[in-house]
């Protein structure tokens, strides 16, 4: 079971961005999958989580309206996208899966995607 994330990204403020997380080794629609942000030198923050089976989503209030989470079950991939990135979006973004069910701990993590937003 693993989550393979897309590579590092560099964008200028105002540009769009979409990062991905491809799941393998389990049935993608059997568990939620989410994104966690870590600003360099800072702690972990929940961004959002999606149920690939129902497409139900839950956003952290801090990120609601700032990002869009989605999942495509046919390619077992989750996405996180921005319409207009800002310098404050610079961070490492991890995708993670709670295999025992939502809120029962994130036991599978991707390797992280570094997003750098700078002019």
């Amino acid at each position, binding site marked *: 079971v693993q989550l393979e994330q897309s590579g590092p990204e560099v964008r200028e403020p105002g540009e769009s961005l979409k990062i991905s997380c491809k799941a393998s080794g389990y049935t993608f629609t059997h568990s939620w999958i989410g994104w966690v942000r870590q600003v360099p030198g800072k702690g972990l923050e929940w961004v959002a989580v999606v149920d690939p089976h129902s497409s139900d989503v839950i956003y952290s209030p801090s990120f609601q309206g700032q990002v869009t989470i989605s999942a495509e079950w046919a390619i077992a991939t989750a996405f996180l996208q921005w319409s207009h990135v800002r310098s404050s979006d610079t961070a490492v973004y991890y995708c993670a899966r709670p295999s025992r069910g939502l809120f029962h701990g994130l*036991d599978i993590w991707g390797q992280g995607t570094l997003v750098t937003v700078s002019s």
Partner: protein
Amino acid sequence: QSVLTQPPSASGSVGQSVTISCTGSSSDIGGGYDFVSWYQQHPGKAPTLLIFDVNKRPFGVPDRFSGSKSGNTASLTVSGLQADDEADYYCAAYGDTDNLEVFGGGTKLTVL
């Protein structure tokens, strides 16, 4: 600003035990939900799950790591400290305010 409060640092000598606290409120840790998790993160690496559901350990996590909860505070105890335990530790708990988990600010554990 984290909803869950952790001490920024903790330390202990090799072989000793150390306990890290995580204080929340009646809306999360003290809310009657046993949805408390602990994570270990080494520099430059993704976090790994140490404890889930307050005191359960995933397969492969040594029993030197244990979790507990009392009132609005959860705790992680690391017994028999080893050099490799030096890392950042984060708690997380379900909060009914936002219907999502929240993380603590993290504790940097130094093994002397």
